């Protein structure tokens, strides 16, 4: 009986119901996409760093694991010392520069031979490895997203580059240039941002890490086997705050829309509330009706929001193939729960005033 009544109440004002459901759907989509984009960005970045093939990543003291944040260059001579350590098979010093013009890209300046020894070399979709100072390699995803072809000229970091090769994605960066050229452009000759170290055997990696720590006690040493798990929003300055603020805004949207919708509903149905009270409906009964209607609207909104999120992701990936948008089931559930809880909180006051209406006044309401 009560389910039928709630359904009929919701259908009675189709436009208001539709707008309320859409507002909740937008709230849910916002949460899912924001979390999906940020976690996708982090995961994709982490996987590419792991994809270099190194066992250890050495950076300057207090360096962020996100190489885009701060160059913090180290003397390249450190690489020679690392090579002499026991169990070290290869060392690849890399100099990085962050490009924020026409996109956000981290450029790896490499020495092709040492990078090959650590990574196992590139898989080429076309072209060849870096030879000339102005050569640039782009990965296949960058090539597709930016419509870059073999032989093209690229203007990046204030310099003209020649696209010498298109490589398989997943080796730390999407863009690779000669390290010397990049150092000259940055005015950082004989500097490296990170040293990728490969052990002769995986089980020797902890020992290598200890050796490096003894050699360079204040430097940041990370074993890459755990790198993906380290790439969380809590490790990126400000990202956790950003996510929480976006979620808070989404909740506020849902709360306010539901508050307004149920408030006008209660006002409109004042006489009906009087009738229910004349029949002996308790305050709890009245509150239950209002909150149940809200729950139904929020559930419909959550379902629509999840569908809208999948649609949004499909559109984003079509427009920006280099993006990763993660949508784990856990966050679909969290976003839906946030919508329902926020909606119920928004409906609490209207439900309370509905329950407290004087039946005589309510019956006389026109």
């Amino acid at each position, binding site marked *: *009986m*009560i389910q*039928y*009544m709630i359904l*009929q*109440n919701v*259908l*009675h004002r189709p436009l208001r119901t539709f707008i309320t459901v859409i507002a909740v759907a937008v709230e849910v989509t916002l949460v899912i996409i924001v979390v999906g984009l940020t976690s996708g960005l982090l995961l994709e970045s982490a996987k590419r760093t792991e994809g270099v093939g190194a066992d250890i990543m050495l950076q300057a003291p207090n360096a962020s694991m996100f190489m885009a944040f701060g160059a913090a260059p180290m003397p390249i001579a450190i690489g020679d010392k690392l090579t002499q350590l026991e169990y070290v098979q290869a060392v690849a010093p890399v100099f990085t520069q962050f490009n924020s013009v026409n996109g956000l890209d981290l450029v790896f300046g490499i020495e092709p031979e040492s990078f090959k020894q650590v990574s196992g070399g590139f898989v080429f979709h076309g072209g060849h490895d870096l030879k000339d100072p102005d050569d640039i390699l782009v990965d296949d995803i960058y090539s597709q997203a930016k419509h870059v072809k073999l032989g093209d000229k690229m203007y990046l970091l204030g310099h003209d580059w020649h696209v010498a090769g298109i490589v398989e994605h997943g080796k730390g960066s999407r863009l690779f240039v000669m390290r010397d050229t990049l150092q000259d452009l940055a005015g950082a000759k004989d500097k490296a941002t990170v040293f990728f170290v490969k052990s002769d055997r995986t089980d020797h990696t902890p020992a290598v890490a200890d050796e490096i720590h003894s050699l360079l006690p204040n430097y940041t040493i990370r074993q890459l086997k755990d790198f993906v798990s380290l790439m969380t929003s809590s490790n990126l300055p400000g990202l956790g705050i950003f996510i929480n603020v976006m979620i808070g805004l989404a909740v506020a949207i849902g709360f306010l829309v539901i508050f307004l919708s149920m408030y006008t509903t209660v006002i409109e149905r004042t*006489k*009906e509330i*009087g*009738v*229910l*009270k*004349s*029949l*002996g*409906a*308790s*305050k709890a*009964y009245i509150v239950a009706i209002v909150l149940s209607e809200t729950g139904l609207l929020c559930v419909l909104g959550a379902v629509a929001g999840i569908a809208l999120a999948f649609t949004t992701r499909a559109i984003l990936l079509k427009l920006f193939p280099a993006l990763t948008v993660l949508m784990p089931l856990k966050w679909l559930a969290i976003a839906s729960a946030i919508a329902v809880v926020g909606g119920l909180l928004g409906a609490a006051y209207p439900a309370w005033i509905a329950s407290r209406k*004087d*039946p*005589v006044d309510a*019956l006389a309401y026109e």
Partner: protein
Amino acid sequence: MEPILKTENLWKVYRQGKVDVPALRGVSIEVMPGEFVSIMGPSGCGKSTMLHVIGGLARATRGSVLLDGNNLTEMSDSARTLLRRHKVGFVFQRFNLLPTLDAYHNIALAQHIHGNGFDPHRFEAVTSLLGLSGRLKHRPSELSGGEQQRVAIARAIISEPKIVLADEPTGNLDTKSSDTVLGLLRSLNKDLGQTIVMITHNPEAAEYGNRVLHMRDGQVVDGISIH
């Protein structure tokens, strides 16, 4: 036999701004089980207020209201709500059916609120008695005034209340529908022993009851038995 309804020196005073307006001024009445009492009076004499107070919708300012042995004036709002649920059925001038529900669910709602679940036998008996069997799937907007009032009566009696309080039940009906509704109320009283208190300003409608009480300026001025 104890009266089903008894008021003693009943007062109801409304505060309008800084002025106290007495709607009921010391009303004392008794209604015995199985009676059909009509309360007549001009507009503003306190008839509706009387109905609201004895039905537990409003609290008396002073005096007592005993409904089936329960003193409403000493009860909390939630206690009066509970009493109303089990012992009182209301019929209103403007029917007051829920517009989003069809006739079936408008009547079943009362059973649902009552808390004893849906009783199909009782439901069938009441809707048949009131001639509603073919109209149950229609919403109020699809029913005539007379049909809507019959649905309202069905809703009022479906849970076997001790007393039915009817507030100008024919006020929005034409003559023919009024006669039908009043006839139904009379037959509920005569055949099923339903206690009814009906307020009306129509002397012809009042004669459907077996006793008429006249009200003026918040007081019962006289009462006559009809049959």
